[in-house]
């Protein structure tokens, strides 16, 4: 589920699909209407150990997870305040035994539901039950186009084979399929084959999402950072495929922001159009927000309503709009274009979430960080630190050679 910020950004990214109209009616720069889509991270448990996982390094333990009844109450409340879409994610959401029950509840309260899954725990029966609960869409992550690279990245034997099988069942059940491919230095060479794999699987959409470097991915940056040449080649391949596959496969593409001139408009701007709910029930401006120490996040278990938390809590208001910005953001002509980039990245790389995201060329740290990325990309540290509840486990030689 590591490409969440691509996906969620897209909710409001394309004015040509009519969403701009909704935004101006539903919210203004100062009132912050309730988001159209919310990400529900049902659990941080996951059988995979991807080194770029977008979950925080400090994972929520199973014992802290919201119960079935609590999640149902949350879903009801979300629908009542005007949320339209719910993305069930994780961790691995199918690790929750109550997933079909939660999907059915989302349907009952009128939410459009999307499952963001690694698919390795799915069986055809489980998927049928989800289809019967009127799940609207399935997104399956892939780590490569063949098992050698893919299973090594996932840190899970036969992961790729299981994903292919689950993708076939998805289409057999006539569920729409998005293939999500997270790309980095060690699998970018497979991009043309990954695009063909998505076509062969009869997917509707392919997300080609370059790794974003915070949390686990930051720990693994030296092993994952692509070279500029790789990114240029990838952009060319995607552009060619978008033209060739028009009407067959829609391709969304996210470049890694280390190699961009302007930072990404992360989450569409902090607290502007998105929130997610963590396994333990924290309401967060983005799925990585808990990495910012010193910010307190309210929980759905508190006495506050979700709408109150969205509108009034300190964490959401801290970096909302443009008033909080220091220079060079404050006087920048782009401040309402990118809202100063990503708060989590600013925190991870500068120690202060209020600084300009170093992905921006105007950040005093941009040059230094860009050079470091180039050096890492040219290096040969290809060993991963696998994601787990123990804080990460270095890949062994035998795994690396596999």
């Amino acid at each position, binding site marked *: 589920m590591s490409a969440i910020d691509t*996906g*969620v950004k*897209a*909710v409001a990214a*394309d004015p040509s*699909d*009519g*969403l701009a*109209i*909704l935004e101006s*009616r*539903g919210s203004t720069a100062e009132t912050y*209407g*309730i988001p*159209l*889509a919310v990400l529900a991270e049902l659990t941080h448990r996951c059988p995979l150990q991807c080194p770029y996982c977008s979950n925080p390094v400090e994972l929520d333990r199973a014992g802290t997870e919201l119960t079935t009844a609590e999640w149902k109450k949350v879903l009801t409340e979300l629908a009542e*305040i*005007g949320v*339209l*879409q719910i993305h069930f994610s994780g961790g691995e959401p199918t690790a929750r035994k109550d997933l079909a029950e939660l999907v059915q509840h989302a349907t009952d309260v*009128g939410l*459009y539901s*999307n499952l963001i899954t690694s698919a390795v725990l799915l069986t055809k029966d489980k998927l049928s039950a989800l289809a019967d609960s*009127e799940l*609207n*869409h399935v*997104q399956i992550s892939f780590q490569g186009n063949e098992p050698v690279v893919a299973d090594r990245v996932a840190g899970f034997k036969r992961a790729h084979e299981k994903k292919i099988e689950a993708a076939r069942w998805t*289409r*057999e059940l*006539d*569920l*729409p399929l*998005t293939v999500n491919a997270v790309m980095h230095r060690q699998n970018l060479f497979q991009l043309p084959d990954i695009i063909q794999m998505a076509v062969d699987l009869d997917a*509707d*959409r392919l997300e080609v999402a370059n790794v974003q470097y915070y949390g686990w991915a930051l720990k693994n940056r030296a092993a994952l950072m692509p070279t500029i040449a790789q990114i240029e080649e990838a952009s060319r391949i995607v552009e060619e495929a978008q033209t060739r596959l028009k*009407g*067959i496969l*829609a391709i*969304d593409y996210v470049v890694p922001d280390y190699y961009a001139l302007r930072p990404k408009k992360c989450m569409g701007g902090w607290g502007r159009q998105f929130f997610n709910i963590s396994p333990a029930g924290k309401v967060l401006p983005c799925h990585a927000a808990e990495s910012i120490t010193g910010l307190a996040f309210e929980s759905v278990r508190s006495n506050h309503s979700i709408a109150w938390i969205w509108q009034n809590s300190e964490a959401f208001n801290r970096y909302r709009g443009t008033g909080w910005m220091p220079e060079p953001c404050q006087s920048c002509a782009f401040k309402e274009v990118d809202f100063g980039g990503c708060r989590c990245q600013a925190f991870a790389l500068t120690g202060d979430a209020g600084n300009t995201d170093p992905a921006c060329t105007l950040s005093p740290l941009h040059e230094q960080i860009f050079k470091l990325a180039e050096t890492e990309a040219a290096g040969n540290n290809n060993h991963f630190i696998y994601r787990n509840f123990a804080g990460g486990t270095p890949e062994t030689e035998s795994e690396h050679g596999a």
Partner: protein
Amino acid sequence: MAALRSRNISVSETSRPVLPRHARLKFDETRQVWVILAPERVLAPDEIAVEVLQLCDGVRDVGQIADQLATKYAAERAAILSDVIAMLQDLADKGFLAEAREKTP
């Protein structure tokens, strides 16, 4: 082979369009506007589009939809038909329209 096929549709007078599972037409009570919910997208169809989509039940064909709207608005059928086809084709090109197919007789 599934009965519904959402890609590469060419909309004509005899097509029997229907919204696929991943594109849901819904009235958003909070914002008082009709929306089409789709993967990672929320579209806001205009009033005419909403009226057309409400008639897309996979049973009526596009010709019948045009008949119905031409009668309702006392408008020229040919003009309505071409507008309806253009609107549905646009939706189909975005991947948000399916077509009901006859089972092999």
